[in-house]
């Protein structure tokens, strides 16, 4: 049901003014091949059945919708958590990688590559590659290799080769550049498993479709639990795949507010990752969207304490949702995210990823109604060292 829904973008991959396919000529035929293969697969009942089986048996879906009672008391409103942290490998990323690698096998590709920021997408791709028996190379910014070391070890254990990228800001943006360079070189044999709703058409809509299981489940679960829809759904936004996955379940419910939470880093006047709040239209990684750039069109460095939100762009579907007003976007600083992290640990016994902690922190502000669903996109094991090192980290004192 999720896969066979029609694309949200137009035939050229545009969501309003955002999206498209801005890539070197070498990749144009490969993206056309991928678009055709995906269009065929999503309508194929066998493919859908195989994908659903993977979601059930490998990922462990459905993930629970969990009523956070003590956190709700603290916030003075009802907070429900969509527990993607309980998915296999510890984040929502696996929903997408299993679908893409299944498609890659169907297309006869012999090798997969991926970029990763926090390492969750890299782990999820390495897992899917191991499951299907394909070799896997993961590009990761050298800064992220240091701050997310646990995931680097996990990827290597799963048989993936992890390539540190020293160029530029040595974070997610540069890892995507390097993965694209690999793809330009090995496009005949290789599928590039992009980890978010970014990149050239058909990636943004394809990844969104593969993640929309989050929102479909959450909507059914909240109706069953409460007999009503929530006032808002709230999710963190880096590239924005877990947020789009959650939001898509509620597009046709105008009474449900969609709230994306960007990384304000050190504050919006300092270094941050808030491409919707502070970005301007630009072309990055194959799509037109909102990006952080200077007046000559050079991409500027993003910053977030969370490696998964440390990205100077955002998926084109989010740029479109912001432009139309269907979703609203707010931001949360590193400091506030650490407070949200601590609150969830102590109130519920749940250690969230720092990315997801941004969404929790915003939910605690209580701006979006009495009943909210928060996308808990991943678990925080990978972040314990970063949190422990964070200045003034009272939580581990």
């Amino acid at each position, binding site marked *: 049901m999720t896969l066979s829904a029609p694309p949200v973008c137009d035939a050229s991959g545009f969501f309003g003014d955002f999206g498209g396919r801005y890539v*070197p*000529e*070498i990749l144009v035929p490969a993206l056309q091949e991928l678009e055709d293969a995906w269009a065929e697969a999503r309508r194929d009942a066998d493919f859908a059945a195989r994908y659903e089986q993977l979601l059930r048996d490998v990922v462990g879906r459905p993930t629970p919708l969990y009523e956070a009672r003590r956190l709700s008391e603290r916030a003075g409103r009802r907070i429900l958590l969509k527990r993607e942290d309980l998915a296999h490998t510890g984040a929502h990323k696996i929903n997408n990688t299993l679908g893409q690698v299944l498609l890659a096998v169907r297309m006869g590709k012999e090798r997969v590559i991926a970029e990763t920021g926090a390492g969750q997408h890299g782990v999820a791709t390495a897992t899917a590659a191991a499951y299907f028996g394909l070799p896997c190379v993961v590009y990761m910014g050298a800064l992220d290799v240091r701050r997310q070391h646990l995931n680097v070890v996990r990827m290597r254990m799963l048989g993936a080769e992890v390539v540190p990228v020293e160029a530029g800001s040595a974070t997610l943006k540069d890892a995507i*550049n390097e993965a694209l360079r690999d793809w330009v070189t090995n*496009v005949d044999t290789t599928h590039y498993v992009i980890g978010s709703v970014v990149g050239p058409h058909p990636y943004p809509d394809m990844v969104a479709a593969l993640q929309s299981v989050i929102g479909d489940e959450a909507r059914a679960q909240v109706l069953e639990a409460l007999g009503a829809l929530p006032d808002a759904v709230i999710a963190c936004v880096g590239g924005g795949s877990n947020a789009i996955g959650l939001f898509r379940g509620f597009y046709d419910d105008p009474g449900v507010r969609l709230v994306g939470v960007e990384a304000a880093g050190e504050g919006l006047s300092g270094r941050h990752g808030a491409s919707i709040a502070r970005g301007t239209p*630009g072309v990055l990684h194959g799509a037109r969207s909102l990006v952080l750039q200077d007046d000559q069109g*050079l*991409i500027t460095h993003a910053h977030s304490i969370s490696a998964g939100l440390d990205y100077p762009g955002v998926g084109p579907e989010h740029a479109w949702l912001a432009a139309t007003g269907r979703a609203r976007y707010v931001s949360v600083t590193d400091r506030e995210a650490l407070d949200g992290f601590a609150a969830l640990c102590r109130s519920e016994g749940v250690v969230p990823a720092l990315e997801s902690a941004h969404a929790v922190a915003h939910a605690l502000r209580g701006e979006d109604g009495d009943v909210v669903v928060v996308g808990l996109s991943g678990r925080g094991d990978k972040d314990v060292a970063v949190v422990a090192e964070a200045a003034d980290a009272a939580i581990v004192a």
Partner: protein
Amino acid sequence: MSSLLEHLRDRSRGGRRLLVPYVVAGLPEPEAYSQVLAALAEHADALEVGLPYSDPLMDGPVIASAAQRALRAGVGPLHALDLTAGAVSGPRIAMTYYNPVHRAGEDAFCERCARAGFAGLIVPDLPLEASAPLRAAAARRDLAWIPLVAPTTPHARVAALAGSATGFVYAVSTLGVTGRRESLSERAGAVVAACREVTDLPVLVGIGVSTPEQAYEAATFADGVVVGTAVVEKVLEEGAAAARDLLARMREALDRL
């Protein structure tokens, strides 16, 4: 006909092969850049100038780090255009990623190119389907359009790409980013042949053409070559004179044909 095409036709009279060196703007540092341009121009039929960009995804390590070096010296993509204006003999072609063009506005960008004396434009990450407005803006200012044709380009698409060219057709020799290769790719010949079937514009081979031998081999079936990484390496490691000498040897090799 664009001025660039007219110039290239003139230079290729009698079967003479074309040599187009590439350099990143602002190398080795902004103060010494004009000497580099002058040295390269001695053996160039046209000069391709790379505008430094933060995320050059078609470039291998040599050109990508050269662009980083130029950016650190304060040479952004628009500044690079102005820095290249002035006295260099022969036409110049700007190679830029699309975002700086988008940021400036397509018309404003072309205006600035033309004012800086450029005669052509290469935008490697702007596919044919999205390039019509920029091609129109370029044509209004006599900036020749130079599309890339790749080994993966299907036959029907080659005709459309070549049909968009108003300067020359850039035949990408191999799959991959800019940089040295041990030998010229076996796929280069097929790319050039596919272009030949559908255009009578000059077809030049680029990417992985680094030695006089490789230039000679490519020019046995193409109208000329674009040489990037080898030139940038020479400029940075041995200086402008060494880069000029490399081009002189390439010119000799091409003239054996």
